[in-house]
């Protein structure tokens, strides 16, 4: 198993990063850090995806001199998927940041626990 982990080290690193990002996103109480965790998680997935497309000793998938031999180029599909993924991640990050600003305007803190407390107070006051 250790040998395999060494050969697939890029994927190992990416899953470790994924786990770090995941637990930050799920369990950290600070909203900014949650967003950072989200980005780490997404980027780790893209690293994983990119590493799938890699074939040692081959060129980027841009046809050169009309040579269309498949054994000269790496897999183009993961690059396309990563491109899609990056755009999705940018959009989601923007929405989360906008939500964070709104939330800060209403509750004046970024700690989710404190926000819950204040929200509960509100709830008890309301009819």
């Amino acid at each position: 198993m250790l040998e395999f982990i060494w050969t697939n080290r890029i994927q190992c690193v990416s899953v470790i990063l994924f786990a770090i990002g995941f637990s930050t996103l799920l369990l950290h109480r600070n909203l900014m850090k949650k967003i950072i965790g989200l980005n780490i998680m997404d980027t780790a997935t893209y690293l994983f995806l990119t590493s799938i497309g890699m074939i040692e000793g081959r060129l980027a998938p841009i046809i050169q001199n009309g040579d269309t031999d498949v054994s000269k180029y790496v897999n183009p599909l993961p690059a396309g998927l990563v491109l899609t993924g990056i755009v999705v991640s940018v959009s989601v990050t923007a929405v989360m940041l906008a939500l964070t600003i709104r939330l800060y305007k209403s509750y004046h803190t970024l700690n989710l626990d404190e926000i819950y407390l204040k929200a509960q107070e509100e709830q008890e006051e309301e009819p």
Partner: protein
Amino acid sequence: MSFTVNFPLFMIVLSLMSAAVSSVLPGKVARVITLCLNAVVCTASSILTVYLYAEGPVFYKMGHFPSPWGNELKLTYLGSLFAAIFATVMFLCVLGGKKHINLDIEAKKQNFYYIMIDLIQAALLVFCFTNDIFTGYVFIEICTIASCGILMISQIGRTTLAAVRYMIFSLVGSGLFLLGVVVLYNITGHLLMPQLRETVEALWQSGEYRMPLISSLCLIVSGLAIKSGLFPFQFWMPDTYGYATPASSGILSGLVSKGYIFFLIKIILDVYGSDMFYSSGMNNVLFALGVIGIVTGSGFAIAENNIFRMIAQSSAAQIGYIYMGIGISPTLGIVAALFHIITHAITKPSLFLSASALSDSANGYKKFRNLQGVAKDNKPAGIFFTIGAFSMIGIPFTMGFVSKYLFATAGLGEGSGFKAYTTIIVLAVSTILNTLYFARTVIRIYSKPTGENRIKLTVRNQKPYVTASVMFAIINIGTSLAASPIFYLIERGVSRL
């Protein structure tokens, strides 16, 4: 090939285009566009359902390239049936929630609300028709952002908080889903479902890449389960549904989470195949979580003192039913789950709309003690709430009864000994719990008023709401009377999916 098969493409592009066009139009026009879009989608899907029922499934190329290379849609009549139902429910939600959409959202931003609805419509269509798992991921993200959008649009601190919670869980879910897709792509080299199915079957039989295969299944299933609110991840629900504008609550609980579940069922049957899924043990996990979800959801619902939060907690329980059905068996269990998706999609939005009408009558109060006797001031809302509550409890002549009956048959007929007992016991317990909190509410709204000043609302001053609710009630009771043809349709569809 008949022209009818082009309908899904046109419906999806039409939804995306009407979203784009609505961004420059005033709210009222955008609203008309959304309603027209929903009506068109509903009609076209119904025609398509009839066509596909006769012709069998059609593979529709998105572009010039066939299946392992290009994107593709797989048109089955089950998919288009669900698309028609989703569009109908969305139409009725937008129609019935009109008053609160106008009240809760500032006029300048109302067209944004309808843009989000159009985009959710597009995403739901894609969930029903797509044959490509990565397209599914992209539209899952559209759906996530758009549903967050319809949540936080009323701009109170509370809804923003709910939106943040919803967003965090959704993002965790989509992260897991994407990783699962990536792992699956790594070992199969395909993204389209028919090729995935072949490769997965071959891999499962040869035993090669066993661990990655199982973990990709776990990641995909747990991603979608988190997004749709299965048991340990249902805590965003009361906040989310409790404070959003009622149309949003209805759409989120009735359609968005159901869309994810429909896509999950599609993945289970089309990508992994029922043999692999039901021998991997993942179904038992879903069954267990579903059962716990039913009991805890009902338990939390009893403890709530706010009518919206109670309905939201009951939503969590209903999601539990659906996952329990998926966990029981690939045939009857999934049929029951699909039937319950329809039941819940039709009942929950009508409950949310009726609850908001009741609370309007009680000067906007949402706590039970303020709602005492309110049905006497708002008779239509009282009646429709009662019908919805009966359907949730499972009283005969409502859809809830049929789906509980189906779950019981599935559990007894196809579950192993332990599962059969658990299903029956859980159904009994949850029916008692449902009766407790829904009957309590119904009795409360019909008991003697406390003498507060109330706003009298009749059919005349809430026409859109009454129209929508009447439609919901007719569909609900009609479907329960015509349950056997629908059951047959779903069963035939599942066996051929």
